[in-house]
């Protein structure tokens, strides 16, 4: 038996024995997500047990080094683990901006001390992280952030306001883009700071969206403080870290949107109008087929992106491509599902309707789609800017 087969066999046995039934075959819905943190909410006892067991093996972050709480698996082993989890319908044990966003940034730019301090708690789900990027005056022009950070007696003192902080009211810590050098060009004056949100200087206020959710917050910094050492990368180099993370975020939004949620569109069509009913509406059918074609293309493009990552041959512009395409397709798909479901489901209580109302936000978040087009024009095509 090859090493890889042995690993698969071993993993299969362990998963069978350790993945509780209550952590299997759960619908991919927000209420089933485990976010961990200092005050964790557990959808079920089984999911708590599942997270603890996975964290123990470092398998919440299979590819991170073992010394930082990871599983130390190579890409191939991680792929086997994912396949074996999918085989038994094992739910992802931990949803976390720490895993998706901050972790990769710390692994790339963090000091050894920062990695030891923060990564294991992220891996175990002990600390829940928020992202402090956008501001009321810095949306598409993210590098225009005005939240100020000043070094006073060995501590950063932060003042200003962030917005669209995902689950800001439920998070323990925040990584934030803060202007620490006000007198240099805007891209060079930003630092990437880490702050504990459990302090009087930080308050949050949820914002209700058109889909009824209030996951996004405004976050206010009023003489908030953090230790001088809590800066990732050099002072003034925060934009480099931010850009690295935005690549991750875009690919993530694109993939999540492209993969879609809920029933496949063709199944919705068959279950509502039916094949004959759909053929009687060629205009609608055409839009559905176009959307299915686009989704299939996205799926193949994501497969290629994973292959390219393995071969260290990534096209650096692909995250923008996936973000742009995935979110547009997702909007069109949710809109078509609504058209098929009919008028009685156009209520806030309907999951498909809420997905439709969530879809426009994805076209805006992570750099609006117009920003992605600007990025492609400037970086991929090297088209000149107007002076």
């Amino acid at each position: 038996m090859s090493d890889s087969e042995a690993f698969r066999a071993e993993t299969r046995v362990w998963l069978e024995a350790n993945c509780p039934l209550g952590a299997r075959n759960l619908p991919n819905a927000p209420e089933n997500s485990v976010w961990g943190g200092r005050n964790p909410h557990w959808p079920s006892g089984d999911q708590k047990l599942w997270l603890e067991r996975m964290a123990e093996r470092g398998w919440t972050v299979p590819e991170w080094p073992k010394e930082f709480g990871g599983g130390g698996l190579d890409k191939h082993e991680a792929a086997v683990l994912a396949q074996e989890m999918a085989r038994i319908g094992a739910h992802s044990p931990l949803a976390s901006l720490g895993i998706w966003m901050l972790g990769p940034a710390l692994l790339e730019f963090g000091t050894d001390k920062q990695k030891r301090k923060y990564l294991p708690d992220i891996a175990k789900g002990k600390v829940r992280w928020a992202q402090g990027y956008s501001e009321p005056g810095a949306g598409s022009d993210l590098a225009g952030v005005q939240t100020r950070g000043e070094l006073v007696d060995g501590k950063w003192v932060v003042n200003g306001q962030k917005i669209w902080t995902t689950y800001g009211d439920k998070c323990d810590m925040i990584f934030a883009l803060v202007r620490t050098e006000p007198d240099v060009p805007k891209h060079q004056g930003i630092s990437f700071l880490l702050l504990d949100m459990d302090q009087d200087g930080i308050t949050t206020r949820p914002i209700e969206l058109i889909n009824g959710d209030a996951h996004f917050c405004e976050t206010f910094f009023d003489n908030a403080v953090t230790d001088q050492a809590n800066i990732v990368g050099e002072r003034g180099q925060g934009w480099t870290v931010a850009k690295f993370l935005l690549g991750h975020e875009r690919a993530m939004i694109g993939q999540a949107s492209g993969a879609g949620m809920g029933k496949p569109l063709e199944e919705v069509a068959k279950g509502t109008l039916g094949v004959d009913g759909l053929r009687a509406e060629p205009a609608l059918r055409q839009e559905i087929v176009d959307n299915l074609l686009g989704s299939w293309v996205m799926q193949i493009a994501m497969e290629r992106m994973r292959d390219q990552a393995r071969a260290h041959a990534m096209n650096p512009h692909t995250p923008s491509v996936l973000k742009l395409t995935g979110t547009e397709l997702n909007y069109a798909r949710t809109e078509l599902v609504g058209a098929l479901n009919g008028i009685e489901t156009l209520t806030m209580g309907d999951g498909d309707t809420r997905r439709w109302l969530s879809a426009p936000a994805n076209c805006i978040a992570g750099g609006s789609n117009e920003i992605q087009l600007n990025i492609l024009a400037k970086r991929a095509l090297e088209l000149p800017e107007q002076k």
Partner: protein
Amino acid sequence: MALVLNDDEVMLADATRGLLDRAAPVSAFRALRDSGDALRYSPELLAALAENGLVAPNIAEEDGGVGMGAAAVAVIVEQAAHNLAAAPLISAAMAAELIGWLGSPGQREALLSAIMTGELVVACALEEAGRHNPAKVETSFDNKVLTGRKTAVIDGVGAGRMLVSAANSDRVGLYLVDPAVDGCIVEAIAAVDGRNLATVRLDGAPAEALGGDDADEAISAAIDLGRALLAAELLGLADHAFDMTVSYLKERKQFDRIIGTYQALQHRAARLYARLDLARSVVLKALRALDEKSDETSLLASLAKCVMTELARDVLVEAVQMHGGIGVTDEFDLGLYFKRVRVSGDLLGDDRFHAERLAQEKWGL
């Protein structure tokens, strides 16, 4: 296999590009077109490509071939598209596929090495409808002769042999015919893109069966290959026209500014870039499926042809528009690509044909 070109494929692409840039610049295609030459491809170029093992490399090693797959053929076809290189590459690969699949040992020996060396051009006459319809086979094979009419035969003019699909009682077989015989009349379609394309009238033309009388599976496989190769050709054409356009956006000035600084144009170009990036993976996916004999090969070949036909058309329409007046002149090369994209797009099914096929066969709609 991974959806990334491997080292061999990258080397093959570089070598092909190098050879074609020397032996077949776009100006050579233009000169050939202007000469009115009936063959519409260059025998010298075919010989040069053959000498370098670039003609039908999908012929199996046991048949004396290079034994590479569809992906390798596509690498060559895609590079040829950049230069509009006038050589019968797709017809050779499709014929090789059919002969390798169906041919008797004698037929394989007589035909395959001659195709590979460029001495023999074998055209595939599989189409009977002006608008692609693979189900239509009304040509008949009866008493060892063929009767019927074929169309859209790629590289049919001047071909040394033809492979003709025809009904034999209730089955469809494939028949080898020498176009020089009585009862076989090949006529050129003066296609706008300068490609060698023909109709074939068969009026009691003597022919021999390739393999048995049931060639359905092999014909479908050859059509899948042809669709994927045309998708690769369209990718090369679209890439080339797109690169020309992006360069033009960087140099053309109006109102005292480079037109590429206008955001309206930037975003249109960026959208095409995004679609090209996505389409590249779809074309490679179809080729890998062909080489791995995946169950989804035929649908993936349709997807690739669908995506590339629509995208290449959109790229060329935008390319011409962004070039302005120069884009619609015959002396500027862009028009050659505009026309080629149209014909490559319609051969073996356009985007609408394949979207409908996928709607029914992939999604059951």
